[in-house]
């Protein structure tokens, strides 16, 4: 009998312990911070999952960055708690390094675009499919004087995530053969296996000493 009472007390304590833990739990964050990396209010294309923005929040003991990856179309998003954040642009991207942070106030769903100055831009991109040849025509403009052009490359891919890592065919032209500010063409043959399927095409500009390319919009080729 005595031991039974002990069991009752014990189980009561257990129930008590486990039913009380609501108090110090947080709700999951719900506010969505979204935006785009832009130049002249136009989004810049990059390789997906390669470039980061950093979010920092002062005032808490655990001061570590929240890494935010930039999508292939230049957009980014993060689910956060409401509060004040600093948004930092990292070096190594195809735009000028700018160590100034951007103050971001997150209150509910927030949209913040991140303005940058790219080293080069690629404009007026058109694609022309002719048999198994795809020809891209584009204009490369120099925006920053800090770095030189290395090459311009054309990629074909199976999905919208087409870049220098994920592609089925590519071609490139070195900087000496590109006249900045005037139209350049570049062609590539479509592999036979993809002759009749939907493919995507994209032009990337490579800057000297920068591993990441700046891309045009990934365009669907029928």
């Amino acid at each position, binding site marked *: 009998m005595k031991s039974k009472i002990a069991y009752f007390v014990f189980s009561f304590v257990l129930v008590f312990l486990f039913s009380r833990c609501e108090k110090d739990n947080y709700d999951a964050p719900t506010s969505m911070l979204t935006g785009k990396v832009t130049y002249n209010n136009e989004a810049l294309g990059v390789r997906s999952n*390669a470039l980061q923005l950093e979010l920092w929040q002062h005032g808490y003991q655990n001061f570590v960055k929240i890494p935010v990856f930039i999508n292939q179309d230049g957009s980014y998003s993060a689910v956060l708690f409401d509060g004040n954040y600093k948004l930092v642009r990292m*070096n*190594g991207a195809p735009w000028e390094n700018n160590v100034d942070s951007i103050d971001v106030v997150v209150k509910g769903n927030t949209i913040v675009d991140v303005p940058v100055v790219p080293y080069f831009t690629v404009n007026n991109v058109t694609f022309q499919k002719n048999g198994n040849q795809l020809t891209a025509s584009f204009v490369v403009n120099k925006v920053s004087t800090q770095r030189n052009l290395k090459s311009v490359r054309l990629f074909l891919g199976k999905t919208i995530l087409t870049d*220098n890592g994920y*592609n089925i065919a*590519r071609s490139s032209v070195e900087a000496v053969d590109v006249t900045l500010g005037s139209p350049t063409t570049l062609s590539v043959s479509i592999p036979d296996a993809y002759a009749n399927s939907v493919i995507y095409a994209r032009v990337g500009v490579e800057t000297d*000493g920068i591993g990441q390319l700046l891309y045009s919009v990934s365009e669907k080729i029928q």
Partner: protein
Amino acid sequence: MKRNIKYYIAAFLLSSVLLSCNSDWLERSPKTIITEEQVWNDPKQIVGLLANYYNRLAIFTGLEGNWRDKTMFDDAMWSGYSGEEWRNQMSSYGNNLGELWDYYLIRDINLAIENIDEYSTSLTDAQKQGFQAELRFLRAYQYFEMVKRMGGVPLITEQLIYDFSGDPSGLQHPRATEAEVYDFIASEVDAIKDQLGNGGSVTRANKYIALALKSRAMLYAGSLAKYNNLMAVPITTPGGEVGIPASRAQGYYQASLDASLEIINSGIYSLYKNNTQLGENFYEIFDKKTNNTEVIWVKDYKQSADKRHWFSYDNIARGLREDNLASSCITPVLNLVESYPYLDGSKGTLKNRNAGNTDYIYYSTLDGIYANKDWRLYGTVLYSGATFKGLPAGIQAGVKVWDGSGYKTIEGENIGTTYTDGKTLVGNSGPHRSMQEVSNSGFYLRKFIQSGVGTSTRGIRSDNWWIYFRLGEIYLNAAEAAMELGQSNAVNYVNTLRERAGYPANSLSSLNLETIMNERRIELAFEDHRYFDLKRWRKAHILWDGDRNNPQAMLYALYPYRVVGGSHDGQYVFDKMIAPRFLTPRYFQLSNYYTFIPQYVRDNNPKIVPNPFQ
């Protein structure tokens, strides 16, 4: 009354006990605390402390700790526990890869050097100097480990003491330049090399171990000075914390060559040549501890002292494992296997298809395809048809059944299965396309897997040593430095090593960086070199460019099959493919050349400038 008397007596006795004792009766020396004076006057205790420091030296991918990171590059893939599958699927390398900021060890060493000066009274001057030289070697080695990962780091050579003034700025030291750290290592080695004792030791620092550090460190500095400045835009910081001026390259290469030659010409070390079977001979460098005159400095393990590691348990071939768990984690890939040339000097590409690529090449044995390869392949990789511990590796992926016009490939759901003809379908060791703890690449590791019975069990474990420096590397260091200095005899050092691997004498007539890169890759595979070598040559971002179409960024497998039926019945054919579990190309970005400075370091010390791209 009677009782009272008892109390009186007791009280009297008690007080006399307490009062009569002389004054130091209560002053006992504590039995659980060792004082500074005791430690620094007892050579045995100092050696005990040194053992602790030796054990804490950083190794990036050794036999313990981060050994799994041997699968992060292009020599091996992960075939073990599927929870670690991310190693085969990394979209890029982390910015903290190889992070090391261990000033705890630096501080302990600084403290020890100072304490010997302060407390040692009964040691002779020679003893003191010897211990201090040994400590300075350890400190120099640790700084080398830090600079090759992080770039220039603060050079702290004395203990920092906080004065409780509320202002910690006196403790905050800026980063030294990359060149200054390498210069520090060189000057420390020069200062201590003749003070170090331990002659003949392979575990405690002596003159030649210090010179080996200099040989490697100066080679790193020289190639950083040269190859960084050959990039279109060199990786530098304005203050020189990263980036060594190109003008320093010559001097560093010369210093490296001088140190290497001093070791080679000392006559103390010689290449290991105790076994006439050249493949086994190469393997024994890492397995045999007696009569091994090649090793210069090792981290030793010992069964009887319970200093053991789990490397064999984790990495032995699946079919040969003696335990019922683990095995097969690090599996070399075809990329590495094909980088071993043929002994006639031709390129190492394995010949699995005929010249016109219309049919297989048929081999009568499972190891036929590896005939006449560099013997170091045998010593490093366990391939199909080879044996280990007297047992066949058991590597066969399935069968190819001839149906009159073509082959039908049959693979099993499990390993160790039998085909309907009563012969092997899948070998005991796979390979298998999806099973965990079975090789996915078709190869297993031989190097560093201990040969003794039971060494891959949890109960016994392994005690083969980890080699920091061996003469083989010093030959390659000498060859590279001499080549960069334009000396024509550079090629001889490489030829000596190649002769041991089975090549004829003078197999190479000239040397270039490509050859050096490949020789270092195959001679020093899994010895913690490839990642750092490719970084200092600034080749990593070119080889591992994150491009699926680049065969150097993808990892490949080789699957052997037995032919059933047709005119080649019973022979073996081989399929090359991208390793099935390997999904994402290796992607080394420019920002990976220098590991990012940890955030807590920058928070604590605002004088620390970040690395490029950080």
